[in-house]
């Protein structure tokens, strides 16, 4: 069962578009699947013959479970079948009262009503202006399978076809990821890899012991208090907090220049790029109070000041000391405060009120060379900004390739309070100010 929407956990087969024994080609529609959002078409991920339908129409399967077997016409699939969960014969329980015999229905009217499909098809058709429930955001989900056009040299395509190699299992090393002869040769020389990419663990041949000598060695250490708290907090977060993510790329040359300029005025200031990011975040939050907010079950709380939580890595975990009212503080104040808070965080001398109650958080892993990442929201805050490393990259400006200091940031938003466009507008402002920090003084 492929992941066909970002929030999908299981899918229900609405309709099989192929029968057992049908030939299928990679990319061809194989089935229609009801996800939590809509009815999505699932495409075949391999060439071959649809040998066995494991999950019949109307039945559901969690992500990653086998729903069918595609193979060569003559291939022995008995071992795969024995692995299939509860292998319910496909067409047995048709949800419809159609008196159809064995094989699944041939092309039937497009919309077959299947019983438990509350929020399925119509989502896109109703106006979303007034429908507060599930409308604005959630960009159409592509399948988790690599989508887009595959670039293959003519020679590589022919070699793959002749050797029966599935190109989706091949990583292209040519320009733009083009799959070339070398890649096919490398793939073919690999010791008998599974022919197609496996969406679930490779089944173990029955009767053959797993070729592992002994269980891995391990050591037990008591989970520290902070570790337990982190776990509790993150589960609290990722469970009930519906995250979505917005990423943008920021040209940092001016910000870096400003930092150099300020530090040249007084070396003791020691302004860091992160301090500038805190200041700019606070400024942007003041322009977008709807992002400086928290969902409180019965109400949404909007904050007046930007209290910025700054994630600090410490010996046994992390903690987010808070720079209060960052929007009202100068860069040098912010720099000094962050330095002081981080120092005390590392020596575990922060008072609880110094690391709770932020309105918005920033996590920066740039110093570890991380290009971009997503951060987990610290409830009840509405969002967190994940900041990647700043590094020189070739970019196109005025049709010229030039080198700029580029930094990528990803904002995780609590969709209960921040919508896609709301978050995007905030990031737009954030980017504008950070790319032209003079806005801070205008």
């Amino acid at each position, binding site marked *: 069962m492929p992941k066909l929407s970002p929030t999908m956990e299981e899918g229900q087969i609405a309709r099989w578009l192929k029968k057992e024994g049908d030939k299928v080609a990679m990319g061809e529609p194989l089935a229609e699947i009801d996800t939590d959002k809509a009815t999505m078409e699932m495409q075949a991920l391999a060439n071959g013959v649809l040998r066995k339908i494991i999950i019949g129409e109307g039945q559901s399967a969690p992500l990653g479970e086998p729903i069918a077997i595609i193979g060569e016409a003559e291939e022995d699939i008995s071992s795969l079948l024995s692995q299939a969960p509860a292998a319910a014969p496909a067409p047995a329980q048709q949800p419809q009262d159609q008196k159809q015999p064995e094989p699944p229905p041939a092309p039937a009217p497009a919309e077959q009503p299947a019983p438990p499909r509350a929020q399925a098809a119509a989502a896109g058709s109703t106006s979303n202006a007034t429908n507060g429930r599930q409308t604005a955001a959630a960009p159409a989900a592509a399948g988790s399978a690599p989508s887009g056009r595959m670039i293959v*040299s*003519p*020679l*590589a*395509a*022919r070699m793959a076809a002749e050797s029966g190699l599935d190109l989706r299992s091949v990583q292209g*090393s*040519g*320009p733009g990821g083009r799959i*070339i*002869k*070398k890649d096919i040769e490398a793939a073919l020389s690999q010791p008998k890899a599974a022919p197609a990419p496996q969406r679930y663990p490779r089944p173990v041949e029955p009767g053959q012991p797993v070729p592992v000598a002994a269980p891995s060695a391990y050591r037990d250490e008591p989970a520290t208090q902070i570790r337990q708290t982190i776990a509790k907090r993150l589960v609290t977060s990722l469970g009930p907090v519906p995250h979505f993510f917005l990423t943008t790329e920021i040209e940092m040359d001016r910000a870096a220049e400003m930092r150099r300029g300020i530090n040249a005025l007084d070396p003791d200031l020691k302004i860091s790029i992160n301090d500038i990011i805190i200041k700019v975040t606070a400024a942007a939050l003041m322009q977008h109070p709807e992002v400086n907010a928290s969902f409180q079950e019965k109400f949404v709380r909007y904050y007046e000041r930007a209290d910025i939580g700054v994630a600090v890595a410490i010996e046994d975990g992390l903690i987010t000391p808070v720079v209060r009212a960052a929007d009202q503080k100068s860069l040098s104040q912010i720099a000094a405060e962050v330095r002081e808070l981080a120092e005390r965080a590392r020596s575990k001398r922060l008072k609880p009120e110094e690391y709770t109650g932020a309105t918005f958080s920033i996590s920066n892993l740039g110093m570890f060379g991380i290009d971009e990442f997503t951060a987990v929201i610290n409830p009840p805050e509405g969002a967190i900004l994940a900041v990647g490393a700043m590094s020189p990259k070739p970019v196109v400006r005025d049709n010229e390739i030039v080198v700029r200091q580029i930094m990528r940031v990803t904002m995780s938003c609590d969709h209960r309070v921040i919508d896609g466009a709301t978050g995007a507008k905030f990031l737009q402002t954030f980017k504008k100010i950070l790319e032209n920090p003079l806005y801070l003084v205008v």
Partner: protein
Amino acid sequence: MSTITIREALNQAIREELARDEKVFIMGEEVAAYDGAYKVTKGLLHEFGPRRVIDTPITELGFAGLGVGAAMVGLRPIVEFMTFNFSILATDQIINSAAKMLYMSGGQFKIPIVFRGPGGSAFQVSSQHSQALESWYAYFPGLKVVMPSTPADAKGLLKSAIRDDDPVVFIEQERMYGNKGEVPDDPDFTIPLGVADIKREGTDVTIVARSLMVPVALKAAEQLEQQGVSCEVIDPRTIRPLDIDTIVESVKKTNRVVVAEESHPICGVNAEISMQIMERAFDYLDAPIKRVSGADVPMPYAKNLENLAIPDVAKIVAAVREVAYLD
């Protein structure tokens, strides 16, 4: 075998063919008393007399037409253009008369004529005197187009061209007249038209080069060898008819192609060769074909700009590395 220049090889070919067949004669500007503007016809007037080696006025259209007429009545003229830049004046006779006559006379008139002379870039003779016109002539059915790159090829191909019953446009390269190489002494040594030559064998990338680009491609191949890339250099020698089979065989082996020429890129011979490779060997290509051509500008007079306008070793090396996915 003797080691001689392309100039001497051409001279030998003409001398041997004048001696072999009394229907052969040569005419052009300064070919007789002056021994040829590039001394290709040196000593021929003295040896064969003014009926066989004829100085013409500066009238390219006129003497090209004389040649076509002579060929129609059974002679085998060699028409020398001082350079192919001046053949532009004679194109009506070359294209409308020589190329079409066999067809339009229903096979009654063969035109066994050779139009020859230097083409391509020289040394700072600027825009009007540096043109590579092979794609013009190769465009027309009825003409054969030959471009040698070594003394042996020059001699063997020119002798075949003179003996051929169809009009042949034989384009030498002004910069290459002094290039030396071994040439068989056998007076019946010929090289058939329409057969490519593998100038260097290799396994990784095929370079198709002709005329001036052959020695450049061979130097590039030497450098690339040291970088671990084995290049096969193919010289088609005849542009029409083109020996595409030899090229395709090579592409099937290497899967990558660079086509090199000194002429302009647009509608050039490189474009034609690339298309034919695509038609015949698409499924064997592991990279897009890369062409290296002369700059798409009138040839500059300034030395530094002229050097930039003509493909060099570095450009071919870069192109090979690109199709080999090394850069």
